């Protein structure tokens, strides 16, 4: 405990560094996955192609990607931008399937009604299909947020500062309290962010509040939880 009180400044710095690396990928992957997910559904060939590319991308382990990226984009090995780009790629790879499935899950009747009411394709996308995909997008971004928070620490072995630096430093100097601090803070930040995202989701999608979003053993089998949330 002594270590913590003596190093509050360091812990604060590492936390800020951590957030500066982890938050942009979460935001970027959410925003970028929407057009990519849309494109996946748009053409017959594009879905398979986009999903296999993102699957392969996600199969690449993070540490090797952090090492290889600088050669491709011409940055230094210890530049935090490498981690930000790598984590954005992972986030997109994870999100694209959710986005594509979510956008495709809108009930055909609902989409046709929107068309019949005079919605243009663009209006229909923004006002019908995207909001209806909301719960699926929310589930996807929660996974991305939590895993991005813990992936950020990996960069520390290459000297890219984050809460992970508390692990590497604690290892080299054999300070267990430092490692514990890093682990607890990383998990706490992930849970906090997850909580915030859920709250934002509740604000933006008031209609989902009625139904328990956790899919029940029987219910989820009969119909997608998305359509249920909408019809309820």
């Amino acid at each position: 405990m002594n270590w913590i009180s003596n190093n509050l400044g360091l812990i604060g710095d590492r936390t800020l560094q951590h957030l500066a690396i982890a938050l942009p990928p979460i935001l970027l992957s959410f925003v970028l996955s929407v057009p990519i997910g849309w494109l996946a559904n748009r053409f017959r060939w594009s879905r398979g192609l986009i999903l296999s590319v993102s699957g392969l991308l996600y199969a690449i382990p993070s540490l090797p990607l952090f090492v290889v990226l600088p050669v491709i984009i011409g940055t230094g090995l210890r530049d935090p931008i490498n981690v930000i780009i790598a984590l954005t790629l992972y986030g997109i790879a994870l999100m694209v399937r959710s986005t594509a499935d979510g956008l495709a899950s809108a009930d055909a009747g609902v989409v046709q009604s929107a068309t019949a009411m005079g919605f243009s394709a663009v209006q229909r996308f923004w006002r019908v299909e995207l909001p209806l995909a909301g719960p699926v997008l929310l589930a996807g971004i929660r996974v991305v947020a939590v895993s991005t928070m813990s992936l950020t620490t990996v960069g520390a072995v290459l000297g890219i500062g984050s809460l992970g630096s508390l692990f590497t430093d604690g290892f080299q100097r054999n300070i267990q309290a430092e490692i514990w601090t890093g682990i607890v803070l990383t998990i706490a930040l992930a849970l906090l962010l997850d909580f915030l995202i859920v709250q934002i989701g509740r604000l933006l999608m008031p209609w989902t509040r009625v139904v328990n979003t956790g899919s029940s053993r029987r219910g989820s089998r009969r119909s997608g939880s998305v359509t249920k949330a909408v019809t309820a």
Partner: protein
Amino acid sequence: MNLLFEAFQFIFDPTSYGGPNGIDTRIIQHLLISFGVLAIAAGIAIPLGYYIGHTGRGRGIVVALSGGIRALPTLGFLILIALNSQVGLFAPVIALVVLAVPSILAGAYTGFDAIDRRTIDAARAVGMTEIQIVGKVEVPLGLPLLMGGLRSATLQVIATVTLADYVGGGGLGSYIFLGQQVGDYPLMLAGSILVVFLALVFEGIFAIIQRLVIPAGVAARPVKNLRPRPITSRTV
């Protein structure tokens, strides 16, 4: 790009092979550790996942485990275990098993859970015993999802073995950390490329296996009510 060229030069140089630090040795080490870990993890997770999937008891554990493990920073966990045990293989193996279990558990459990209740009721109605239901209905129908779980566990383990070299352990990660210590960037690149190659090979193998294990009758039926796949994410 010159650096990449040097890295490939290292990979294709015959003198990089053989000996305790040869590429072949490192790849075999990497695979042996990975498969050992996966075998232990599967031995724990598959029976447990089947039990939970069949009885429906303890489903909360699976959800909590597969959700919770996502937040756990692997590097910190590896280092913590390494500091509290002897240097060498033991620490990484324990940590790796712990990290691999949730994916396999989720695969085994969701494989059973995703089966239409009516299929199982029908099996019971035609007089199958519980063991027959598990062996002849639930296990075959659950195989594709179990393979999905094994697939993400394998990728997770291959990635984590690389990282585990930070605390000692052997495998391809040693090139990355050795290269870092002596300032040999091409060596780091070569190690990284080899790991990526290994991961993609296994991704491909599992993609094929997952297709092969779909029971014949299932593949013929049009897929209705696509359940959202369990989102399994890697933490390394």
